[in-house]
C-alpha cells in the first residue's frame, strides 16, 4: 500500500470522530495545575488535621491517666503527710504503671476530711480514697501511693514533696 493511499483513506474517517476532534477541549494547564495544587493542599490539610487529632487524643489520654480519667477533680490539692513531710500529687508523670523497684511499704492511707493532714499517713482529698504508701529511702523527694478511688483501681501514683 502506498502512503498516499493511506493518507487518502484518512479522508473517510467517520464524521463522529471528526466532530469529536473538532470539539475536543483539553484541560487547561493552569486549571490542571490548580487542581493538582489544590489536591496537594487538601492532602497537607488532611495530614495536619489527622496529626492534630492524634496529638490531642494522646494529650487527653495522658491527662486522663494523670487524673485517673476524671476531669474537673481537684487532684493536685490532694496532700498526704509522711515522715513529717507533706506530699502532693505530682503534676507530671504522676501515674506509673508499676511501683519502682526501690519502693518499700510504709503504711496504709488514712483519709481525712480536714483541710490539711496532721498525722502520719493522713491524706486529705476532695474524693474518697484508700490505699498503701510506699517510700524510696534513696529518693525522699517522692513517695508512691497505690490508690483505689471511685475512678481508680490500685493505680500507682507518684507524690512529690512540698516545696518549703
Amino acid at each position, binding site marked *: *500500500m502506498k502512503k498516499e493511499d493511506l*493518507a487518502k483513506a484518512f479522508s473517510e474517517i467517520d464524521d463522529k470522530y471528526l466532530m*469529536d476532534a473538532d470539539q*475536543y477541549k483539553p484541560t487547561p494547564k493552569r486549571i490542571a495545575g490548580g487542581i493538582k495544587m489544590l489536591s496537594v493542599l487538601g492532602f497537607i490539610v488532611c495530614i495536619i488535621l489527622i496529626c492534630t487529632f492524634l496529638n490531642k487524643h494522646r494529650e487527653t489520654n495522658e491527662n486522663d491517666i494523670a487524673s485517673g480519667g476524671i476531669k474537673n477533680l481537684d487532684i493536685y490539692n490532694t496532700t498526704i503527710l509522711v515522715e513529717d513531710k507533706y506530699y502532693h500529687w505530682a503534676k507530671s508523670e504522676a501515674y506509673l504503671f508499676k511501683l519502682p523497684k526501690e519502693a518499700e511499704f510504709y503504711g496504709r492511707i488514712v483519709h481525712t476530711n480536714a483541710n490539711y493532714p496532721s498525722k502520719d499517713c493522713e491524706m486529705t482529698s476532695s474524693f474518697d480514697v484508700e490505699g498503701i504508701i510506699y517510700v524510696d529511702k534513696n529518693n525522699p523527694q517522692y513517695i508512691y501511693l497505690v490508690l483505689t478511688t471511685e475512678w481508680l483501681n490500685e493505680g500507682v501514683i507518684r507524690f512529690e514533696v512540698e516545696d518549703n
Partner: protein
Amino acid sequence: MDSDDVRILKLYLERNEAAIEETYSKYGKYCFSIANNILNDSEAANECVNDAIFKTWSSIPKNYPKEFKAYLGRIVRNAAIDMYKKQNAQKRKEDIFGIALEELKDCVTDETGPDKEYEMHELHKMINNFLETLSQEKRFIFIQRYWYSESIKNIADRCGKNENYVSVTLNRLRKKLRRYLLEEGIEV
C-alpha cells in the same frame, strides 16, 4: 449538526445559491485552512476551496450529510490531496503534508497491492475501528496530524502539551496502526 447547518443544507436542497454564500461565510476559513495545510499555497488552496464548494453544490441533492462540516471538510481534503499530487515533487518534502505523508511510511510498505479497490474499502473500516480504540486525546492528535495536516507545534498548543509529547505520541500511534492493520489482515 447545528441549526445553521440544517438551514444551509435546506438551501442546498432547494437549489438556492445563497447556500454557497452561507457556506463561504461559515466554513470558508475552515476549508481554506484544510487545503492550505496540504498545499502550502494560498492561491491553490483558494482554488481548491472553490472546487470543493462546487462539488458540494453538485453532490447535496444526492446526499444528505449527517455532519455538514465534516462532509465539506472531507471534500476539500480530497480535492487538496488530488491537487497536491499534481504539484512539484521537490516542493512536497518541505511542507507539512509532505512530512506527514513521509511519516506514514512507518505504517505501509509503499507498494500497491493486487486488489486496490477492495483494500481501500477495508482500510476505511479498519481506520475507523482503530480510532475507536484510542483515547479522545490521542484521537485528537492523530486526526489533527493526518486529517488536518497540522504542524506538531499547532497540535501541541491546541492540546496543551509540549511538542516532544506530540511527536512521541504520533510515533507510537503510527506503530500501533501498522500492527493493527497487519493483525486485521490488511496488506501494508
